[in-house]
């Protein structure tokens, strides 16, 4: 099963096995990863599952949708070129080992 690594601002790492097809948001919530709220339930409408994806995995992800871009642009927390919403990242075998950094706050 592919794995995903969540890294907190204090450097704490959580390594999770994530079934293919499941989103990183759901995996994080199911495993109580600190800092992921996911208020809207996975529709790219709330911006409370913001993560910064390790640069190496950026080319492997589909481009963000218009809704995801709107939400990311509207966040108060610092957004980088590899910022994504965890609800929009569905795990695949290709993404095995993906590392995402969880920001200090959401929204």
């Amino acid at each position: 099963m592919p794995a995903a690594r969540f890294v907190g601002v204090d450097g704490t790492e959580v390594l999770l096995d994530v079934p293919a097809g499941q989103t990183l948001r759901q995996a994080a919530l199911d495993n109580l990863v600190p800092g992921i709220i996911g208020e809207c339930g996975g529709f790219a409408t709330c911006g409370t599952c913001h993560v910064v994806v390790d640069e190496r995995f950026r080319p492997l992800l589909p481009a963000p949708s218009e809704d995801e871009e709107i939400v990311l642009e509207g966040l108060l927390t610092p957004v980088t070129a590899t910022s994504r919403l965890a609800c929009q990242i569905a795990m695949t075998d290709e993404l095995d080992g993906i590392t995402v950094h969880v920001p200090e706050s959401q929204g």
Partner: protein
Amino acid sequence: MGGSLPRSVDDLPLLPDLVAPQAWSADLVAASDGLFERGVRVLRDGEGGLLVIGDAVMRALAQDPAVGGTPVEFLTGRAGDRVRRATGAAPPSGAAAFDAFLRNQVFTMNAALHVAVRRVVARHLVPRAVLGMAGHAERVLVGVLDEVTRVGGVVDLERDVAGPYVTRFWTDQLGVPAGAALRVQQLVHEMNRMFLFAPTLEDRARVLAATEEYLELVGRTVAMAWERGDNALLGHLARGLDGIDLPGAPPDLGALVAANFFDGFHTVAVAVANAARCLLADAPAAERVRRAPSLVAAAFTEGARLTAPLMLTTRMALGDVEHAGLRIPAGTPITMAWIAANRDPEAYDEPGGYRLDRPPRLGTTFGGGARICPGRGATRMLGEVALRALTATSVQVRLESPQPGWVPGSAIRRHPAIPVVVRRVAAA
């Protein structure tokens, strides 16, 4: 029942068998607490639909794309049914304006139209945009507090503080003249009767009349402000609306704004007043926030959890839905008691307690799923500005009624009045 549901909705418990209608109508929060004690999370509502009170099942159903917006025909039909049941008479005619009001609200839309209209409204209420409005909110509130402290005496926290504050904030944002703000506040107060469980003929007539005047007033003044060309928010909304080429879209900017910012005028004022009262009634918590204003976010979230103003709304199964083995047929109305889920003991420790130190878990105050309230960020900002101001060292707010009770028989959680005395305190 949280983890085990029957296969058929017919095997769910029936609300009237467990809770007397008067008890539900009088205080559905207390009634829901009693249902939790019996292990109930989902019921038949006795009107042909489902009633959801549990946190987990509510979140799951809210996130199911097959559970969508409730068609206007259902809402207006049910409103008429309630008048008939309560009065034995036919509901008054002349509901065209009310029908248009509902039809232009994003929450009654489905599929591509919902996505498109929601996007137009929500993209201008993202956190970064809302932060840019906070200074304006602070200035408006200072003006309102100046007025009530100048007059002195007992005032109503909702009617005299939160109502003018929120209404003036939004009317300013939307270019509605200051002179019209008071009338807007009065009209949305009248329209609040639409949330009554057993409206009288007079209630219904007043809702229809107020809705017609509200749509005309807000629609006309917004259109005038847009034509002046000096309101960026309206410009963005108008351009977004122009880009929607779908049947059923709001016919013009005024209709879009009037229908979708109604809750901004009304429900937000109730939310601010309720959350403020929650905090002020808990002296140690209020003192903590006074000493550490960074706690206002937690204070508002907690107050809104316990006293969510819009207690329930109804969604509709657009197709057959299955959740944890329970099969919900297409066309089933599903009423989500958002405020009840905020108190589900399976989701919250000491659910009735007001605690500033809860883990950062947002409740269902603003709904859930793709239909989550697009204005929740602005609501939180307005609430946090208010709590910061009302707990500032330069202001003293004294509650004059320790237990103001709740208005019964309404889907809106609000006190009949929140009498307070507001004083300015000179710097030491």
